[in-house]
């Protein structure tokens, strides 16, 4: 439940990082399993790759790329906050949050361009 005490940038960064992490954590074993199909079930792997050509799947992949980029950006910010010297005690590197979102959107756009462009 989002209360008014939550409505500030750093809290949304926390939420974004946690939720992206959870979703990626659910995706990861599936990802590993599908890749493992290249072992014995090579035709199943091929069929899966064909299936992934569907635009709906590509949009889902775009979503995953966004989640990964968000988790990386917000996570990097945390590492810097926790292990790099603070310029001032009040510096919580809020600008890194905006940059993280921008970076993720750009990465997502480049991905989409690669999918639908060529």
């Amino acid at each position: 439940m989002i209360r008014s005490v939550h409505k500030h940038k750093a809290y949304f960064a926390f939420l974004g990082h946690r939720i992206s992490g959870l979703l990626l954590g659910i995706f990861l074993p599936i990802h590993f399993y599908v890749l493992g199909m290249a072992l014995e079930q090579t035709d199943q792997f091929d069929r899966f790759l064909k299936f992934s050509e569907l635009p709906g799947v590509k949009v889902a992949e775009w979503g995953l790329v966004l989640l990964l980029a968000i988790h990386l950006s917000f996570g990097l910010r945390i590492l810097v906050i926790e292990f790099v010297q603070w310029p001032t005690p009040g510096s919580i590197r809020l600008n890194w949050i905006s940059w993280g979102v921008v970076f993720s959107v750009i990465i997502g756009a480049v991905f989409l361009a690669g999918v639908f462009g060529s």
Partner: protein
Amino acid sequence: MEMKLFLLQRLTAMIMVPFIFVHIGVIIYAVRGGLSAEEILGRTQGNGWWIAFYTLFVISASIHAPIGIRKVLREWAGLSYTTVNLLALALGVLFLVLGLRAVVAVGGLA
């Protein structure tokens, strides 16, 4: 114990930062012109660098993710230390097994 888990999670995060950049780069490059088993496996099978890269990646992720999920389950699901410790361990083993199997598959090691 909590401090050790915290530091382990931060450590694996630091290791994975460059890996993620590489991985995103590979995804963006590979997705052009459509994905095919030949392309993907052609790049990775028998390649020592990719095998080492993905092995380290899988091990780091198998440590990093369960520690995070453990905290979330404790804070948002209110589960006990015993339960979340067991779940985290189980998830770690699951990620490791599936992940290393994927490395074997993609690296052409079987």
